[in-house]
């Protein structure tokens, strides 16, 4: 039963089939890499289509509109039509721009988002690379994207872009601290930075339930700070449409613009996946204490569905924020981080250590 549903079983079968077919280990490795690469690219494209569609529909329903509903069934093909439109747009480069940096920036954004997906656990035993510093790796590599943003903004030689990029840079580096501290408060409980260890430690309850108040505080801080980290409303000062047109990607058009859009959506997925992994148990099914019948039914749902369900729940919350809170000013934004979130999360780390040392976590 488990083999039928599980992605790890599927990948195992593909591997053994390739070994029988090709024999040579080198050929197997190369063909595996090609398969993984194609799957990943396909997954990311599908993901950004889904999120693009979801964003517009959620926004529409929250404002009592219908949203895209003409192209394809329920408007699902709208986003593909948009991609084709973007493909046929002329990719302009401003005359005064720094041409090399201007063209390099989209590549940096995409490569960073690709690299961050490596340690994410999509299902039971289904990861690209389960490295022993998984959480640290994610927080380290994802901060490279700020270089891409600054590069894009500065090289455009446009005042809107420069302002947007500088704001975005200040915002991202500030909120990274709170994200790091809330990650650390979970690492204290697990005693490991490996993503698979963190998921396995939640077998008898997710950290948000087991970690008492400090875990809840850390979860809230993580969600708020990561909303700021990926430049989404109410923290979207970097691309505040009404004042800066589009912020750091004002000058980008066509496919280069699409790359920024895609990396934005994939980043949304990555932070939500991280929240789901650390606080909501990753691919672990929902269990209630000793209700073995209920637990058994929950086990029947494939682990990949659990992971996706939790991730999309967090994504929905972040989309909900956008239509609930008005945009902050720059000074309010920096005050929130430096005067409230940072001291609170520093205190929260100490509180969590106390909980862990007293052995209150399950």
């Amino acid at each position, binding site marked *: 039963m488990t083999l039928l549903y599980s992605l790890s079983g599927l990948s195992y079968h593909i591997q053994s089939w390739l070994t029988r077919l090709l024999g040579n280990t080198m050929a197997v490795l190369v063909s595996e890499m090609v398969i993984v690469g194609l799957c990943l690219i396909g997954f990311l494209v599908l993901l950004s289509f889904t999120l693009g569609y979801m964003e517009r529909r959620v926004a529409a329903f929250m404002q009592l509109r219908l949203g895209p509903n003409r192209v394809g069934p329920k408007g699902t093909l709208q986003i593909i039509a948009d991609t084709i439109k973007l493909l046929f747009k*002329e990719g302009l480069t401003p005359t005064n721009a720094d041409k090399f940096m201007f063209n390099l920036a989209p590549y940096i954004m*995409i490569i960073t988002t*690709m690299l961050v997906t490596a340690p994410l656990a999509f299902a039971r035993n289904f990861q690209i690379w389960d490295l022993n510093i998984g959480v640290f790796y994610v927080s380290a590599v994802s901060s490279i994207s700020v270089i891409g943003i600054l590069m894009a903004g500065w090289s455009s030689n*446009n005042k809107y872009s420069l302002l947007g990029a500088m704001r975005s840079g200040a915002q991202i580096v500030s909120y990274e601290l709170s994200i790091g501290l809330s990650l650390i*408060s979970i*690492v204290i409980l697990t005693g490991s930075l490996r993503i698979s260890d963190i998921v396995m430690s939640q077998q008898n309850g997710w950290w948000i339930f087991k970690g008492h108040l400090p875990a809840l505080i850390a979860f809230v801080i993580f969600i708020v700070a990561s909303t700021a980290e990926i430049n989404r409303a109410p923290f979207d000062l970097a691309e505040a449409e009404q004042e800066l047109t589009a912020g750091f990607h004002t000058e980008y058009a066509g496919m280069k613009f699409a*790359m920024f859009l895609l990396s934005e959506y994939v980043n949304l997925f990555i932070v939500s996946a991280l929240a789901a992994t650390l606080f909501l148990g990753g691919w672990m099914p929902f269990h209630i204490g000793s209700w073995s019948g209920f637990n058994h039914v929950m086990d029947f749902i494939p682990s990949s569905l659990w992971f996706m369900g939790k991730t999309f729940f967090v994504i929905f919350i972040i989309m909900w924020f956008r239509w609930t809170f008005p945009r902050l000013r720059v000074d309010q934004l920096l005050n929130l981080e430096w005067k409230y979130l940072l001291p609170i999360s520093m205190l929260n780390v100490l509180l969590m250590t106390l909980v862990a040392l007293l052995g209150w976590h399950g």
Partner: protein
Amino acid sequence: MGSVSLILLLICGLAFAGGGIFLSWVVAKTKKNAVKGEPYECGIPTTGTSWIQFHVGYYLFALIFLVFDVELVFLFPWAVVVTKVGWTALTEIVIFMFILFMGLLYAWKKGALKWM
């Protein structure tokens, strides 16, 4: 898959971004003219370049960020072993964090956290 996956992901990213942009370059019709190359500023002619000095506030925030980011790097290995080491680890990190917090308060008092 091991560390080889990093190279794979790097190639994937390059191929994806490069492929998309190349495809667009092939199929899209380009027609150059001088007006298209101007910076987009809502129709108003631009005055001067954008590569100018900007506000020092950003620099101050970058400096404080650097201090706290280094703190994070110290905290990650600490967090992994804290439950094994026990109360000594907690005492030490309380002292460490207290000093850092004093640093934050100092910056606050000096007005480094004030915008404009």
